[in-house]
């Protein structure tokens, strides 16, 4: 269920159950009115979160990109014009001047928790 419990003290937001996210693919979430893209990387058993906003197409679509690796970097490819963004740093691979926000996350008892970007 989509309970949104805000833990005011730690600035952490419980977003959803891990099972709500399709593994090795992206899912969009709304956290304090900000759109973020969550990716569950099965091999690492880790959720990575970045902004859902693609600065190239100016649309909120990054959660719909394909994820994978380029060399050592874990990346998502924008579904519109195909630029890659590093899932850990937010850096755009094709254009060093462009980077997007990333959010620390953790998995707590089967729930996905994102650090509140507004906290």
């Amino acid at each position, binding site marked *: 269920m989509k309970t949104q419990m805000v833990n005011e003290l730690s600035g952490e937001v419980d977003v959803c159950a891990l099972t709500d996210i399709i593994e090795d693919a992206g899912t969009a*979430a709304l956290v304090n009115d900000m759109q973020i893209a*969550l990716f569950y990387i099965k091999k690492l058993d880790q959720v990575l979160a970045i902004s859902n906003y693609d600065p190239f197409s100016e649309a*909120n679509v990054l959660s*719909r990109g394909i994820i994978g690796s380029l060399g050592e970097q874990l990346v998502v490819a924008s579904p519109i014009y195909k630029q890659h963004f590093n899932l850990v740093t937010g850096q755009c691979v094709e254009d060093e001047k462009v980077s997007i926000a990333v959010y620390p996350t953790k998995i707590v008892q089967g729930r996905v928790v994102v650090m509140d970007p507004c906290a």
Partner: protein
Amino acid sequence: MSDKKKLVVIGNGMVGHKFLQSMVNNEALQDYEVTTFCEETRLAYDRVQLSSYFSGQSEEDLSLVEPGFFEKNNITVHVGDRASSIDREAKKVLSNNGQSIPYDKLVLATGSFPFVPPIPGHERENCFVYRTIDDLIDIKKAGEKSKVGVVIGGGLLGLEAAKALKDLGLKTHVVEFAPRLMAVQIDDGAGEVLRKKIEDLGVSVHTQKNTQAIVDGEQCLHRMNFADGTFIETDVILFSAGIRPRDDIARDCGLTLGERGGVVINDHCQTSDEDIYAIGECALWDGKIFGLVAPGYQMAQVVADQLSAKENSFTGADMSTKLKLMGVDVASIGDAHAVTENSKVYTYVNGSDEVYKKIVVSEDKKHLLGAVLIGDAVDYGNLLQMKLNDIALPEHPDSLILPQRDGSGSTGLGVEALPDTAQICSCYDVSKGALCQAVADGATTMAALKECTSATTGCGGCTALVGQVLNKELEKLGMDVNTDLCEHFAYTRQDLYNLIRVNEIKTFDEMLEKYGKGYGCDLCKPAIGSILASCWNDYVLEKPHVGLQDTNDRFLANIQKNGTYSVVPRIPGGEITPEKLIAIGEVAKKHQLYTKITGGQRVDLFGAKKEMLPVIWKELIDAGFETGHAYGKALRTVKSCVGSTWCRYGVDDSVTAAINLENRYKGLRAPHKIKFAVSGCTRECAEAQSKDVGVIATENGWNLYLCGNGGMKPRHADLFATDLDYETLVKYIDRFLMFYVKTADRLQRTSTWMMNLEGGVDYLRDVVIDDSLGLADTFEKEMQTVVDNYQCEWKTTVENEERSKSFKAFVNSDKGDSQIVFVPERGQLRPANKEEILAKLN
């Protein structure tokens, strides 16, 4: 005026024009003021490809003259004007239109004319020759009102002409005086096999027939009476009984001619007047007329070199040839009749496959002298090179023509063995060295190599060899060595396909674990996703597959610039009931979707937010629609014209055929999208010849065109097979599609796949029609599996609540994306632009 020397060229045919081009290339042009007479109403065009005019090539396609050629090079051309006489005393050429042009040097390139035997009645209506575009226009016109056609003469050209008549929908006969077809090139044994092949095309063959008179017919316009008392009735007659040099203008001015015609030339291509040259089919060298274009091109080069003070001479030319007939491989090389003293002959005959091969070798069995290939001419290029370059034969020469049953591939020598000077393409005189240079200079695909060297664009006989040279060179340059799909898989798409098929791999993870590394990426994931779908046709949003799909496939809709999607229901063949049309309208109206008729004969609804897709589709499915796969690398549309049901010209029911084809292949996943069209007659209102698969109705069935393309680099489809019944049509398309799916690169449309296919359309015919790979059955079975496992992905999706939920905008909220803004325009909504969004937000 200028003190430039004056050069006049009579005839702007293939060789005359080649000469002008050679002059331009030699930069000899600045020394001459050049005038050329062109008797035909069009400038030089590709006569070798003349028949393709019937299969859709336009005059422009055939033209050999680059736009602006004459203007740029300051050459005066008199089009539609015949040079009528030469005044050698005054050194002037006079023309029909009253031109009188002085010359210092004169070049005759007047070609030849088709010989018409003086049979009583030969000048009757609808009797034609087969030489110029005008001839073809007349033949086509007559063909439209006719039922039966006869070609007199069963040589290379006669057979080509017969095929053309057949393709025009006529019942066609070939009448030959000699006891066999292609009597000049091949022997009796081969003649028998060839006869069967030609008859398989639906052309009746009559040998040893001596036509005595052409008179009024009873059923048809004419009746041809033969010396043996038999006759044939026909509406159209084509004479193809050999060529005669056009030497009248040379005769009139007293130049030396051969006994049986032809302007006598020496090794410098000079006639008996040293200021007059003759080149091409009008010239007689060493008692021989060369009825092929390559020797003419050599002569053109020789004269251009003479005129720019370069040494060059004509030393004879090879007369090996290959018949340009679909489905009929016929080639003859060198001494095909084994007339060389003490020569030895090896023959291989396979009656059931209609293959005949013969080689003629020297007494010591060291050298190849000649060859005849019928039914399987794949080795033509190799054998020709062996002969031309005098390459030593293997110990057992017959191994060259015996089939390789152990799968070890072709016998031929590798292209490695050829010297750089070896002429690979004789039509355009392209040497191996020139090809290698072009590859080094960046022509690294078949298409590029074709474009910059012209190799393979004549008779096409050299295609396989050119492909081999290309591959070898790429390998050497270390260029194409990396055909890896991406950093995660060191395999080509084709390898991956085979691995998946053979090892029955069902998921990406399994594939990555066994054959890949890393995490995969946006190249290999969709590619492997597509192969998995082509092979097993699982639902693409099934858990292990969903992460592999591009957003379009993942949400079963096409993403638009603002992150919304479009919705395209399937409308097979473009046929739709009013009820369904209204249903689409209602869905669009309810959800405020921008509505547009597409270029693919259906309706596209734009502006659906991701979370709306399942609802919209539920309504469409309830109204009887299915997904149109507009998002998939899959069958898109089968366009149709209205056809014989309504159209007064239609000869078959193109709409029913289109609907059936669309329903058969819908859902087939492929390396790229696939489009079909079906036209009800040759007027071609469905534009089938620009599609991957084009079908055109004829009086006798369906003509199949393959590998056309609109889009960025348009390509005319190749006429692949003619007059098919519907079952055979489907069979061929099944095989073709599966072969493409199996072997194409990722994101390679059928057109580029074809351009890179070694052996081109002939090879494709071998595989699809003659089943040369022995895979036809497999292809058909595989296709049947795909057909049987078809499901409408949208139906599967909306029926499953879990799945529908995955379309939600946010995993943790029921809100939508508030940043998508629309504005009205012409009564509908469209995405707002940046300024409009800012204005709205403020």
